[in-house]
């Protein structure tokens, strides 16, 4: 026969279960703004019945208990999110860096490199057409100095950006290592709790968030193990396994988008912020090479003509731009010392005749001369084509970023639909569990009253 206190036991179990349910609901509400939090639900289960004999074997229910507290999460959406956010980070990083590169050139605009090139050739045209006017020679030197300063300055800015990006790559490796250590710590704790039979929902959320953050930086794949831990590979390199966290290899090649470990194994980083940084370094290198090509060909073409000139000082063989035996590119592109020292070292003529502007005319007509070293393009075409390529890249990656952001938004909406906390839902649950608790409390009161009545009968 069930004990007289069976009802009280049943009611108190109900009270406890509904109390825990309200706690879980409160936990959901408290974490409504927590990034990476998955809402938790309570699974109730009937407790095992008790049996008694009353004209036959009878089963009597014993109430309710909590079977499990579950977090609602879709692993498939998580895996899609790793890929999507990795690509978004790549495009986002690249778009931002391309904008920085474009700002160096300041095109299209009156302060751009193209405008400086035009002013340079124009000044030779002015000198060719009015070689007796001293102001024309000064203008040649001034516009050439401006052009040299723009080219050198642009190159120095690109070099600065390159150094910043290399620092960003190093910082990214530090962040990756921090995250992999965090994942390792969580793996160990989850393994321990899982061995004890618990389902550590909050730890699982934190680990998923750490892996997602890692996926923003480098391409990530995961393998779930039966003991609850997760093996993680970043860019194909095993960063987390049963033995612990392994620091990511730091030897990299931006040109090939690869990492190389101490044993010489090569790993490819094709998504994530790291891929964006690598591609940005490639873009900067392309821009620097383009500036070097422009500078070297300006030197060669201008000096080839100017060297045969005879200047107003009567000397010949004077370089216009400083040129060493081996071309040095844009890094030190500048006027020659002779031209800087005395504007009259600028030649307008091969013969030295003051009214002869033929040499200056040839230098002016360089603007429309196809140069072999520039791929048979004129200087302006070469520069305009580089700008068009930069613009097309910006447009392409900008559009790719917009598309990828829409994809990420869509996946995030789906994740939120599954795992997100809705305050309205939690309010309704809270009401439900509160009413249930009230009812269970009423049960306690009523069963207690019944026992009081029974004891009262014995005392008479």
């Amino acid at each position, binding site marked *: 026969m069930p004990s007289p206190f069976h009802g009280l036991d049943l009611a108190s179990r109900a009270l406890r279960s509904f109390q825990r349910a309200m706690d879980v609901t409160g936990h959901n509400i408290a974490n409504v703004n927590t990034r990476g939090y998955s809402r938790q639900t309570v699974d109730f289960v009937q407790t095992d019945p008790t049996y008694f004999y009353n004209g036959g074997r009878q089963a009597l229910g014993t109430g309710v208990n909590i079977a499990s507290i579950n977090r609602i999460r879709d692993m498939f959406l998580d895996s899609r999110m790793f890929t999507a956010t990795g690509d978004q980070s790549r495009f986002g990083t690249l778009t931002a860096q391309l904008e920085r590169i*474009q700002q160096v050139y300041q095109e*299209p605009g009156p302060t751009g490199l193209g*405008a400086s090139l035009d002013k340079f050739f124009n000044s030779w045209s002015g000198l060719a057409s009015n070689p007796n*006017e001293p102001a024309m020679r000064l203008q040649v030197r001034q516009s050439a100095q401006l052009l040299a300063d723009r080219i050198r300055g642009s190159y120095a800015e690109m070099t600065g950006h390159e150094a910043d990006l290399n620092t960003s790559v190093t910082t990214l490796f530090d962040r990756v290592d921090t995250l992999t250590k965090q994942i390792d710590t969580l793996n160990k704790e989850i393994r321990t709790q899982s061995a004890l039979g618990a389902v550590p929902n909050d730890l699982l959320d934190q680990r998923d968030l750490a892996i997602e953050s890692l996926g923003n930086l480098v391409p990530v794949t995961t393998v779930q193990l039966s003991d609850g831990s997760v093996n993680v590979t970043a860019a194909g390199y095993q960063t987390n396994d049963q033995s612990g966290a392994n620091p990511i290899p730091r030897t990299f090649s931006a040109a090939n988008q690869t990492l190389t470990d101490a044993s010489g194994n090569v790993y490819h980083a094709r998504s994530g912020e790291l891929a964006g940084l690598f591609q940005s370094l490639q873009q900067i290198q392309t821009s620097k090479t383009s500036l070097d090509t422009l500078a070297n060909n300006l030197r060669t073409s201008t000096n080839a003509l100017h060297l045969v000139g005879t200047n107003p000082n009567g000397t010949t063989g004077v370089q216009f731009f400083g040129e060493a035996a081996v071309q040095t590119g844009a890094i030190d592109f500048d006027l020659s010392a002779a031209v800087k020292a005395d504007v009259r070292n600028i030649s307008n003529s091969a013969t030295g*005749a003051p009214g002869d*502007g033929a040499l200056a005319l040839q230098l002016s007509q360089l603007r429309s001369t196809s140069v072999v070293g520039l791929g048979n393009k004129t200087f302006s075409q070469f520069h305009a084509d580089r700008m*068009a390529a930069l*613009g097309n890249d910006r447009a392409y990656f900008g559009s790719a970023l917009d598309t990828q952001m829409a994809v990420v938004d869509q996946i995030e909406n789906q994740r939120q639909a599954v795992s997100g906390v809705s305050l*309205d*839902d939690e309010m309704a649950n809270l009401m439900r569990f509160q009413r249930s608790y009230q009812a269970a409390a009423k049960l306690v009161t009523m069963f207690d009253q019944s026992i009081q009545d029974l004891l009262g009968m014995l005392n008479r």
Partner: protein
Amino acid sequence: MRISSQQQYDRYTGDIRRAQLRYFEAQAEITTGKRQDLLKNDPAAASTVIRTSSLKTATTQYDKNLRAAKDYIGNSETALQETNGLMKKAYELAMRGANTSTDQNARDAMAVEVDQLQKRLAELGNARGASGQYLFAGQDNETAPFTQTPPTLTFGGDNNAVRVEVGPNNAATVNTQGSSQFTDAYARLETLKNSLRGGNLSAMSGQDIPALQNSMNSFRVSIGEAGSRMALVKEYESQNQRRIDEFTTRIADAEEVDIAEAMVRYQQAETAYTAAMQVAGQGFKLSLMDFIR
């Protein structure tokens, strides 16, 4: 499908952010009159702007060069006109001197006048332009080309062309080759002077007067050539101005916005921005908590 609170918030703030961005882009277009971030939003148009700006700058320079050309040609033409005037004066003196009714005293006085004409001729041969260059010296134009050592005028310049860049791969000659005209004219005036002093009427009639006519013709031809060059320069100026206008239009088409269209876009963006904020304001107010007693 469930809508979580975070999703709601993200949707409202995302919509506001996007509407705000479009609003500020529309505002920037109106205040600058230009399309924003052209290199990214329309690389082809940006490339057109860069190339066309380059052509426009070059054409503007050619236009400036034409001013130097006009100075050279204009000053040359003025000097030649005055020189031709001198030769005409000498011709008139020769005609009077060759007249039998003119006495020798008068012819002596005419000879002094011819001497003055010679001095002035040498000065005109050494005429200078705005930059101080000698107009009839060829390319060696920083030294006076003509040196007067009576009874001769010596030319020390050269006969090379002075050229001005007027267009792509196009340079025009602006100077007049003056060497032989001035030296010949000086020599003819010297001969006339001697004929006047010597009272040699037959020389004056038979040689001096025809020689002076030749000099006048020669100077008139040079004046005509200078005039043609000036007309050509003015034609280049018109062409350049047309090209500059064309380039300006092409650049404007590529980089400028239609203000009326931009205003409409601005209005639409402002409406969308306001609507996004209003919807967010209304949405945030709705909560089950307000209905639970």
